[in-house]
């Protein structure tokens, strides 16, 4: 069986925390501050980081549980986690419906009669809510949690295979990805179309993260620290950056040779385009080269806010989705000036850090026996949340 490293890698928490902040900023429509987020400077965005690190930590936490307590207990824990995320998703859905219903009742501009048709689903809530509970109806920006639920529900057998034959597990995951492209597999959505994050595609990044956690990264170390690979990664990031600039300065598009354009577009987020994977891998390679695992600054106060968010990722993610609704509400109802955008962004991140810190403190208090219940014996959770 593959070994599971014992000490949690703080870099994972740091970058997952940062990814959660970026997702929050990107989810507020028209947010001026979102120009700082990575999606504007290349092909991939914070979702790749989030899914990869989620796979890594899931393998880290449940891999140890599976080795200590066996397949059944570890699977039960994974499924319990999937259920928690499902409940969180339904909770966010309730907030979303409240927001939509408010807009439907208060806004009626003749310029937007077509756009108001998006509220038509409120006329048959029976169908809509049922489809939402089936994870087929997913409002805008609420696609990540259903993906995460599905990835976890399917994770126990994958983890079992990863612990026994990591290479075969990774190859089978990659094969599924290739077959998905070949046969155009995806899950159906409501009222039409398919899942925005195709689980058959995105599972690859999740499994790759898990594979890295279970010893794969040691095998790769020789490669990712080679000068050639780092050079290629920098070159690719530079290429992606140059292409990204043509999205904002259309006259630059004339400098992109037609064959390059034909080869790269469209860059498919739904099916996790290979260009996006390569962009994420390049970012990861540069990050690993720049930030060593034992970098002392990881324990400093500067990075603590992002790390604490990354350690409580489910709560922080849900809070981020809610705060992005609230932020958009402030833009429409109160003020839409640049200063408001900056304040909303900063306040939102501050609230995320505050709540994550509160959860951290509460868990610690519970562990010490100061909580309402006796401390739970949960050795598998010592590394934090998956």
């Amino acid at each position, binding site marked *: 069986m593959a070994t599971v490293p014992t000490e949690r890698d703080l870099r994972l928490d740091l970058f997952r925390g940062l990814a959660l902040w970026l997702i929050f900023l990107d989810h507020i429509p028209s947010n001026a501050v979102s120009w700082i987020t990575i999606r504007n400077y290349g092909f991939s965005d914070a979702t790749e980081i989030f899914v990869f690190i989620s796979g890594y930590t899931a393998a880290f936490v449940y891999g140890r549980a599976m080795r200590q307590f066996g397949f059944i207990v570890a699977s039960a824990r994974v499924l319990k986690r999937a259920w928690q995320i499902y409940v969180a998703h339904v909770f966010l859905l309730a907030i979303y419906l409240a927001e939509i219903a408010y807009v439907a009742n208060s806004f009626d501009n003749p310029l*937007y009669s*077509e756009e108001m048709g998006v509220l038509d689903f409120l006329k048959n809530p029976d169908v809509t809510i049922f489809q939402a509970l089936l994870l087929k109806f997913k*409002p805008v920006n609420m696609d990540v949690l259903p993906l995460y639920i599905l990835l976890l529900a399917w994770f126990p057998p994958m983890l079992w295979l990863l612990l026994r034959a990591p290479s075969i597990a990774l190859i089978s995951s990659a094969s599924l990805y290739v077959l998905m492209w070949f046969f155009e597999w995806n899950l159906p959505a409501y009222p039409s179309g398919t899942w925005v994050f195709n689980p058959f595609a995105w599972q690859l990044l999740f499994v790759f993260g898990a594979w890295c956690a279970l010893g794969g990264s040691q095998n790769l170390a020789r490669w990712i620290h080679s000068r050639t690979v780092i050079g290629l990664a920098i070159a690719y990031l530079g290429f992606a950056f140059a292409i990204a600039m043509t999205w904002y300065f259309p006259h630059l598009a004339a400098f992109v040779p037609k064959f390059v354009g034909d080869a790269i577009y469209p860059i498919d987020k739904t099916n996790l385009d290979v260009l996006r994977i390569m962009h994420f891998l390049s970012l990861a390679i540069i990050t690993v080269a720049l930030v060593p695992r034992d970098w002392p600054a990881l324990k400093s106060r500067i990075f603590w806010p992002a790390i604490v968010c990354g350690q409580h990722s489910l709560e922080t993610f849900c809070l981020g989705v809610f705060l992005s609704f609230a932020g958009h509400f402030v833009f429409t109802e109160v003020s839409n000036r640049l200063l408001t955008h900056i304040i909303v962004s900063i306040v939102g991140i501050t609230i995320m850090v505050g709540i994550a810190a509160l959860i951290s403190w509460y868990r610690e208090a519970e562990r010490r026996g100061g909580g309402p219940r006796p401390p739970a014996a949960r050795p598998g959770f010592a590394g934090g949340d998956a």
Partner: protein
Amino acid sequence: MMGRWVLPALLVLAGPAWAEHPAECRVAAPLAVSSFPLPQVARALAAKKFAILVVGAGSSQLPGSNGVKNAYPARLQQVLADNLSGVEVKVTADVKSKRTAAEMVKALPADLTATKPALLIWQTGTTDAMLAVDPDQFSQALDRGINAAHSAGADVVLINAQYSPRTESMIALGTYAEDMRWVALQQEIPLFDRFAIMRLWSDLGTFDLYSATKKLDIAEQVHDCIGRLLADFVIAAAKPEEQPMNGSR
């Protein structure tokens, strides 16, 4: 959002050129610049007979008894007729709300045969985004429609979705907007970026697009400006070598 500093800068850019349009429309003129020529339109202008077919969904119309008269297709016809002296301008609009791109393509052959246009102006994207139509199918529908128009001897201009700040958190326009941009680039046809134009108006405070008003005044002004900018856009693309009638570059 970018605020009040951009407005003077843009006005300086615009200079005295767009003198004939209201200032509200003119601030967005730099965004309404075509990147590809329209050879069929140029030919039609030379022949003094210019037929345009506008195909669109709900955001190409206005409600009310004067809705047709004030919506951008009719405004476009008016502005073109006023400025292209001696040219017979005829705009036909096939506009029905809640139509996806694929549904519009189905109606297209009959429309093209009936009107024999030199130009198809195709507004789409919003309904597809609301129904979350498969983006691949959306792109394919765009390609089919553009090819149909080309083989009927018409140039094509695509118009993307409106900027609608209130419903922004509910309609995921992103993929569909990118697909339209990409298809336009690949087919080498101009895209009239209505989204960016209206967004600029909103950012500058030119029009209050957040307003929960039931009144039609802002909607009519927006459509009037869209019609005017579209007229400049088409003429500039048809006659790149000449100064167009309102001087947009």
